[in-house]
């Protein structure tokens, strides 16, 4: 049944252990998806240099969300047509089974070959339902487990080293570094040092790490509970990009028999909007697809804008998929509320002053035709939306105004 689940492409691949079949043959589809050449080497080599053109973060996303092609759509439609499971039922079970598998896997891994955080992280990262931050946390918990340190100090240093490697592995991923920071904080700030017995302390840390992972998984449900209250009957919601949290919110609202309509942007270049609309259509929610440039055109019929976030920064602004900023600007100028759904592990101690004040996450863009020589292409994958254009943030800490983010961060890290 879980083959039909949202991330079946990935799951199938995992099952078959056949990495090359993941990407559909580009020639099959009318608009060939960008099969990035660096993906395949990465699967063999867990520690690639991520800085040669493509952000590892977006690679992961591409793997999770697959690349939409007509082929894929046909498959998906067929799946829905068969009336097989809507993803709702299978996600938790899939997550649970993968968690079990992971535990055994990581234990085995710890015993056998020399341990590498990146390996571990990549392992967790492949889980479709796991956010990158949670994967980082899981990886760090595994570090503790496999650590041969004998004192707290050693362990801490080891952890620090591991988190630094993780962070430097992909400098563009905000949630990865946020997750690492958060876990370090969570671990070192605790009363673990009170335990005289080192092993007890270590066990406690592992426990904490795993608990943290669970908390993070629960976060999405909390947010959905909070966020769906804001959806009222007969409202129109504009959605940009594919955010699992936003999807969860909408799903909960739909299952609570709220009647609403969703406008999905196309979400170029990876067409995440197509995928999102497909998921929503499966839930029986009326969906309309827009091209990215039609946002202002249709903003007057929109009641609220819902977006996810790659990262929530200290100013209360968000970093999200390219195009969020302009949607927020349009919404702001038309006095429409912009709601952001983001788990608290995406809160990062970053403070971009402007769009260029970030390590750019690059992503190849397929224009469908060869690009004339001498023409530059903007390949940045995300933008920064300043807090004044956001109305509220739905997080597992509650519904926050943007200015509270910094308060939470200060209290967390101070």
């Amino acid at each position, binding site marked *: 049944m879980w083959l039909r689940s949202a991330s079946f492409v990935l799951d199938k691949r995992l099952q078959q252990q056949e990495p090359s079949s993941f990407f559909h043959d580009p020639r099959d589809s009318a608009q060939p998806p960008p099969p990035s050449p660096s993906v395949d080497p990465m699967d063999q080599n867990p520690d690639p240099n991520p800085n040669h053109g493509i952000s590892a973060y977006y690679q992961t996303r591409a793997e999770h969300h697959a690349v939409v092609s007509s082929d894929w759509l046909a498959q998906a439609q067929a799946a829905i047509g068969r009336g097989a499971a809507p993803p709702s039922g299978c996600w938790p079970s899939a997550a649970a089974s993968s968690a079990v598998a992971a535990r055994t896997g990581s234990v085995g891994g710890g015993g056998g070959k020399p341990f590498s955080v990146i390996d571990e992280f990549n392992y967790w990262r492949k889980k479709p339902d796991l956010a990158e931050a949670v994967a980082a946390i899981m990886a760090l918990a595994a570090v503790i487990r496999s650590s041969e340190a004998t004192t707290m100090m050693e362990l801490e240093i080891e952890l620090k080293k591991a988190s630094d490697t993780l962070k430097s592995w992909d400098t563009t991923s905000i949630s990865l570094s946020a997750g690492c920071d958060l876990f370090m904080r969570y671990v070192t700030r605790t009363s673990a040092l009170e335990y005289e017995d080192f092993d007890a302390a270590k066990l406690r840390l592992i426990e904490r790490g795993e608990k943290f992972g669970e908390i993070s998984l629960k976060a999405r449900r909390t947010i959905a509970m909070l966020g769906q209250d804001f959806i009222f009957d007969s409202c129109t919601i504009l959605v940009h990009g594919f955010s699992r949290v936003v999807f969860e919110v909408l799903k909960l609202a739909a299952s609570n028999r709220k009647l609403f309509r969703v406008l999905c942007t196309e979400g170029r270049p990876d067409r995440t909007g197509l995928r999102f609309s497909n998921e929503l259509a499966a839930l029986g929610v009326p969906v309309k697809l827009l091209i990215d440039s039609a946002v202002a055109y249709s903003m007057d019929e929109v009641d609220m804008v819902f977006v996810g976030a790659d990262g929530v920064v*200290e*100013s209360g602004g968000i970093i999200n998929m390219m195009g969020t900023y302009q949607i927020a600007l349009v919404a702001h100028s038309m006095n429409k509320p912009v709601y952001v759904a983001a788990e608290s592990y995406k809160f990062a*101690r970053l*403070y971009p002053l402007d769009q260029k004040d970030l390590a750019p996450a690059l992503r190849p863009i397929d224009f469908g035709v060869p690009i004339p020589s001498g023409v530059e292409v903007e390949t940045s994958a995300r933008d920064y939306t300043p807090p004044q254009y956001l109305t509220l943030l739905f997080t597992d800490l509650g519904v926050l105004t943007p*200015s509270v983010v910094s*308060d939470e961060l*200060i*209290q967390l*890290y101070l």
Partner: protein
Amino acid sequence: MDRRVPRTVIDPKFRQVGFVPPGATPPPARSHSVPNDARSSSELSLSGSSLSPVMIPPPRHASADGLPSVVRSAASPVPIPASPLRRDTVQIPIGSYNPSESLLGSSPMMSPSRQLDAVSEFSDDVPTSARLGRSGSGKFASSFPSSSGEMMTMKITGGGGGGNTPKSSLTTASVVKALPGVSEKDRGALIEVQNEGISKPQKQKTQKLRGVPFKRLSVQRRLPAKESGEAVKPSASSGGALPALKQGKVVKPSSQKKDGPQVTAPVASSEKKVVDRIPDKDRKKDVPHPRMQFDDKHRVEKAKRRAVVNQSEARNRVELFRHLPQYIHGTQLPDLESKFFQLDPMHPSVYKVGLQFLSGDISGGNARCIAMLLAFQEAIKDYSTPPEKVLVRDLTAKIGCYVSFLIECRPLSISMGNAIKFLKNRIAKLPHTLSESEAKSTLISDIDRFINEKIIIADKVIVRHAVTKIRDGDVLLTYGSSSIVEMILLYAHELGKQFRVVVVDSRPTLEGQALLHKLVAKGLNCTYTHINAISYVMHEVTRVFLGASSVLSNGTVYSRVGTACVAMVANAFQVPVLICCEAYKFHERVQLDSICSNELGDPDVISKVPGRNDLNHLHSWADNENLQLLNLIYDATPSDYISMIITDYGMIPPTSVPVIVREYRREHLWI
């Protein structure tokens, strides 16, 4: 001007902190302008023009010739629409003292914005008068017979009960009539007597207003002391000439009450709340630490008697800034220097620092704070508890004495205030078991630690953070000379970042030149310009780095005058403004403007241009009473213009200042 309208209700509350209280006698020089202003204001009222916040309201000043003039002068600041009713019967003795009037912004006959300004500028009278009433009401009232009458009417109407009470208009009327010729004491006595038998709420009210004339109680007694909301209508009608109340109707003049001239007493409930809800005791709590108001004669007298520094009266004080300590330092220096060996209670190191502050040898927030702390450290080293005294108490008193001396030399900065608070807190928390020498060494090391952790290391942390915001190819702009910004620029240069610096400077201090000198000496690429050119130079700038004297909890940045201008221009050009400020300079106060708390510098400095002898138009400005020079030291930058505040706790948005203040205080408790 429209933008000010929604703020009406708020403005008075803040402004009350520092503006001319009615007790201050208006300057004789301006007295002749009263009628003018009155006329012009009433003429202008319909056009919707208003006093700009900086304009000085006409002084309410008593001409001794009885009722009509009293009434008129009082009424003048409030624009009175040309209503026949109004003009003939002399109404509104309440005039500017009744903020409620202006709260009735919807009244069609008064220009709301005008009213607004009247409120914001005068409403501070309300609390002040109440305060004076508490302490020295007698003096106040007698020195200002006419205004006391007005106060009275206002108070009573305000205190009348829910909404507008019917009796209020009556009382006010009678009061005005009673005004001339009743001596202060008599009035007071009268009230005392008459108070008996008044219904309770009213009694409280009047007692609060002791010393204010109150005759014709018979009238009042006759009235049922109704305090219900229904009373609104009658009172409005009794208000008569005043086109009052939210409904915006012009109500007919009432005919039922005929005592005295018809007096309007439109009191909006909101006004009433302001007056009523804050009894004196509460107000004490509201105002965290009442700063010295230098236009408050009574208290200035007292302070003078205590002072070490000879306070001479400054001439030509600028109206809006009378409540601030006037700059008189220049004349003090020789006098103080000669006293160096005579001053017993002052420790020489403190004295030295005081003189350095006075002469301006030490300036800059951190430098002053460190100098002060080191002086205190010296003083503590030499301190020995006098017999029969406790170290904790005596030393606190000593420090307090030093501090007041330093204040006389130059008003404390907020950072110094915080440091002093820290020190006093440490002294108070000393365990009683410690011996004197132990206690002293504890304090000395505490001071060392404060300087180290809160200033020196904090600066290093800030530099680390700030440097991450400098990229290659940036053009950084800074204003004045901030030590922390200098460190940031130098450190970024050391790191090999390629950037250019624009140093903006302003007269009269020209501190920027010192900064420029240091930067150029290190090989930085610099541009130097004055603040006049800021709008030109801003278009090429990519970041603005500014220092701050203090950051207040609403995100307002209190800094060298001109900072607000730079920040505003940067904001207009969409250039991010970064404020660098150590967390020990944060303060929980809220400030909306640069008026209520500020420091005045030497006015002579701005009148003279060094090296330009031909510019001597202001040569003898002090002799001209119509001319006042204003040399402000600080200004307040609204948080809207600030993109980021860099502190030792990291980079935060201005909305998070309260969190830092809170966390900082908690940390203080731990130390």
